[in-house]
């Protein structure tokens, strides 16, 4: 199991999402959310959404280990 963290405005779409999930990659987590949490899955599909595993920014395909914390961060591009 990996722990999930939805940072910033992504947390507005994460009501009811389990805090832990079984998945091998962040991309798989997104895929698992499509059916029950389609709005969140859509937000996660935006360009520039970042994934961090144990606070290290990684690729969506990085292999996850049991106990990892997987954080999703929405794009922040304005100025």
């Amino acid at each position, binding site marked *: 199991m990996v722990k999930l963290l939805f940072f910033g405005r992504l947390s507005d779409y994460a009501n009811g999402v389990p805090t832990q999930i079984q998945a091998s990659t962040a991309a798989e987590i997104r895929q698992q959310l499509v059916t029950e949490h389609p709005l969140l899955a859509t937000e996660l599909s935006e360009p520039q959404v970042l994934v961090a595993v144990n606070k290290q920014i990684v690729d969506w395909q990085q292999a996850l280990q049991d106990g990892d914390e997987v954080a999703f961060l929405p794009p922040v*591009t*304005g*100025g």
Partner: protein
Amino acid sequence: MSLSDEQFLRYSRHLLMADIGEQGQQTLLQSHVLIVGLGGLGCPVALYLAAAGIGRLSLCDADTVDITNLQRQILYKTEDCDQLKVDCAKTALQQLNPAIDVVAHASEISAEILELGADIVVDCTDNLAARQLLNCHCYQRATPLVSASAIGWEGQLVSFDFKANRRLCYNCIIDENAGDPTMNCANAGVVGPVLGAMGSLQAATVIRMLLGQFDQHGEMQRYDAKTGRWLYLTASPKPLCAICATE
């Protein structure tokens, strides 16, 4: 050259600090910083750097002041509407600190402006293309880059000391082909003080860099003002990065 009596008074709160002092203030006075984008981030950056006595500030923005800017772009007044931002900013900054040199470039960022030799470039832009252009230029010229962004209640800061570190750049974190998200400040809004917080952090980072006190190359800070939470993240160089994996 030693500080004048007026400078001793103006910068006295810096001079009191052991890790700035007269030598540090001289460094700031001899520095040149380019601020790209004079919006919600660029305004606090410019104000703090002018107040700190950065000797030369180059400002780059093609836009005019609009009434919708005034909720957050704290350099401008109501009567500035329809005037060029860089001209209004220059006037305000020179009122704040008449001794510094403020150069206004009323245009989009260009190679010509980037070639003017700034010691640090501050990315206060609002789109991916501009951010990538600044990243590429700063990497190639080994110029430190201080980049921030904001939307809604959220802010982001990431800085690169390309003089000291030749791997890991903005493109390693945000791919140049990612495209701009559908949400931006114009269609989703932004809270003014979030821009103030991130712009203030950019200004503090610039001062740290100029004083040789920066060691957080490529580390990212994220701020969610709605919950008061910060997140600190690290990143790794992308093995095939088109910018920094080519040397």
